[in-house]
């Protein structure tokens, strides 16, 4: 993988064409630019992580890729199709092949775990109930929840809910999965389980995975490629090893969770806060 | 799936209850019989004044409902109201000299047509007419008459002394 050193460089893709290409993406929320002229590529079959501090617009990026919101400028192509130029019918066709794991899991609270996983199958296929049952049990087995099939979502722990949702998101055998903060708020054991699941599912099913996260260690441990996002731009990108060796002060600060550095975590009020604390501690 | 079956059953019961409610409203509360095809024979009656009589008002004989009013018109020559009554076919033995009056059921009740059977051997047929009629009592006229009577009756004694 070539080592990129400028944040805005058009990354030259390796051999197979990327599954997702984003070019010149610009998106505003109100007056605030969430993205300013962002370019990125998601390679097929790889686990790509998009990391950045909270509020950097990571989730928004997933929603843009999923076509739930439209960019103000730029293009997002998924498997050759420009997402925001598709009609509703074509977009829905495309979405059957992509899948998203929401932060909360977003299980349907009125359906049991089994019915949740069966939901996309019942909606989009005309398979018999017997066949659906087999498929659902296979997906549940993959996430280790075959025994929990009759539980309601309210009876699941956070980690189990995420795994059940993961089973649901692979129900239609998609080409890609987008994970929105899969690790946040999980205990270390659950995190370990999720990390392993994301990696094994990606490799076993030949998926393309996109992980949006600010959990550096966990994400870096499974990602093939990482984009670092801050204040609407890509600060750096590369494989975990490359980034580890990066001399950029910002990357250093983010990856090693240093409390201070070029990046202030207190977004708009940062300067003011530092001003107030100047009296007590010497400025760096 | 068992739960869904139960739910279907509950919904079925609900819809059946709703329909039963409408059935009751139609059959027991309103008079759906009046909406049936009108098979009765028509008889006309002329009144000087029909008061507040409405189409679909009942026609009764001896207090029993035997038909209803199906039309109200005005004869522009005689300035009489022409009321068309529809009498159920099974009451086909009404003497031709029967009389019709417009009555009021109770103080607040609505007006209806009451028939008094006559004594003739011939019976009313479709298109027949009731000759003897008594108009509605119009309350204002009654009160007016009572007042004039009272005034004319009161005045003479007042003058004498």
């Amino acid at each position: 993988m070539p080592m990129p050193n400028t944040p805005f460089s058009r990354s030259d893709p390796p051999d197979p064409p990327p599954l997702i290409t984003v070019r010149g993406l610009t998106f505003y929320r109100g007056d605030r630019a969430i993205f300013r002229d962002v370019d990125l590529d998601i390679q097929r079959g790889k686990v790509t992580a998009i990391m950045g501090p909270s509020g950097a617009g990571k989730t928004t990026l997933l929603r843009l890729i999923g076509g739930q919101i439209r960019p103000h400028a730029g293009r997002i192509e998924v498997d050759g199709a420009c997402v925001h130029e598709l009609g509703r019918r074509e977009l829905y066709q495309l979405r059957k092949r992509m899948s998203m794991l929401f932060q909360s899991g977003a299980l349907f609270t009125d359906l049991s775990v089994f019915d949740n996983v069966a939901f996309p199958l019942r909606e989009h296929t005309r398979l018999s109930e017997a066949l659906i049952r087999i498929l659902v049990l296979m997906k549940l087995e993959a996430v280790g929840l075959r025994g929990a099939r009759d539980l309601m979502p309210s009876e699941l722990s956070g980690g189990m809910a995420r795994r059940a949702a993961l089973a649901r998101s692979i129900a239609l055998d998609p080409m890609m999965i987008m994970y929105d903060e899969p690790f946040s708020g999980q205990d270390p054991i659950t995190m370990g389980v999720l990390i392993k699941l994301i990696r094994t599912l990606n490799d076993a099913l030949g998926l393309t995975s996109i992980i949006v996260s600010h959990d550096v260690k966990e994400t870096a441990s499974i990602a093939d490629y990482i984009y670092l996002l801050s204040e609407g731009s890509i600060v750096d990108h590369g494989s975990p090893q490359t980034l580890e060796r990066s001399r950029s002060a910002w990357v250093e600060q983010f990856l090693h969770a240093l409390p201070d550095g070029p990046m202030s975590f207190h977004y708009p009020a940062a300067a003011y806060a530092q001003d107030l604390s100047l009296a007590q501690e010497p400025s760096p | 799936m068992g739960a869904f079956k139960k739910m279907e059953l509950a919904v079925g019961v609900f819809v059946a209850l709703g329909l039963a409610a409408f059935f009751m409203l139609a059959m027991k509360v309103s008079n759906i019989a009046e909406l049936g095809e009108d098979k009765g024979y028509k008889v006309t009656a002329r009144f000087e004044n029909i008061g507040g009589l409405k189409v679909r008002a009942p026609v009764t004989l001896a207090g029993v409902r035997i038909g209803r009013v199906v039309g109200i018109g005005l004869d522009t020559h005689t300035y009489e109201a022409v009321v068309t009554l529809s009498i159920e076919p099974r009451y086909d033995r009404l003497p031709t000299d029967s009389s019709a009056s417009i009555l009021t059921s109770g103080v607040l009740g609505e007006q209806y047509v009451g028939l008094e059977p006559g004594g003739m051997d011939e019976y009313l047929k479709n298109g027949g007419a009731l000759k003897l009629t008594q108009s509605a009592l119009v309350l204002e006229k009654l009160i007016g008459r009572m007042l004039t009577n009272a005034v004319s009756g009161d005045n003479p004694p007042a003058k004498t002394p």
Partner: protein
Amino acid sequence: MIDGLRRLGRSTLFWLNRLGRATLFLLRLLSALPTLAKRPSLAIRQLYSVGVLSLPIIAMSGLFVGMVLGLQGYANLVDFGATSSLGRVVALSLARELGPVLAALLYAARAGSALTAEIGLMKTTEQLSAMQMMAVDPFARVYAPRFVAGIIAMPLLAGIFTAVGILGGYFVAVQQLGVDSGAFWSQMQSTVKLFDDVINGVVIKSVVFGWVANWIAVFEGYDAIPTSEGISLATTRTVVNTSLVVLAVDFVLTALFFGV
């Protein structure tokens, strides 16, 4: 003065904006109906939660309202010796006004608020987003079945309310106060018209109310700000707005059907 006018202008624009969005929402809702027609089981599930579950409150309220009508009607008519008219008083008030209107108000409180809260919560917990990402249109899968089920349930509930109310009136008048049973029913039958009172009164009114109530309930859920506070506001708005609109529409319909 200027300030007041500006505030008036702002709230007018705000309401027009909402009305516009609600109309667009309704159009998309209607365009999802053909999809729903292929899967009526979705609406049956909703018919259970808006219809069957509303049945107890509707039946109980109908019974009590009918009994109160019987008592009040008797107390007022007995002075004129016209207690035989009690049947028609009870039946006409219920069929023309109280049945459809009270059923709609109770529906807004029982089922409408629940619809708003349910949809709002689905939105907050990303269930609707998840559904969209699974290429399932929430209009066809979530909103339309609820809307249609509500419109089907409303006239049935109003009919049940009216019928139970009349039975309640009968119970008080005939069983308790000694009004003649024959007079009660015959007076009722001779005045209540199937088309004018039952069809126009109960059926048409309650279908219109059902349309309004469910449109508001589903839209408020759809439009809710996805926070717990947003849902609570939306739920309140559903009940308040439905009540106001139902009463206003009732006036128009009454003027249309029963006005001179």
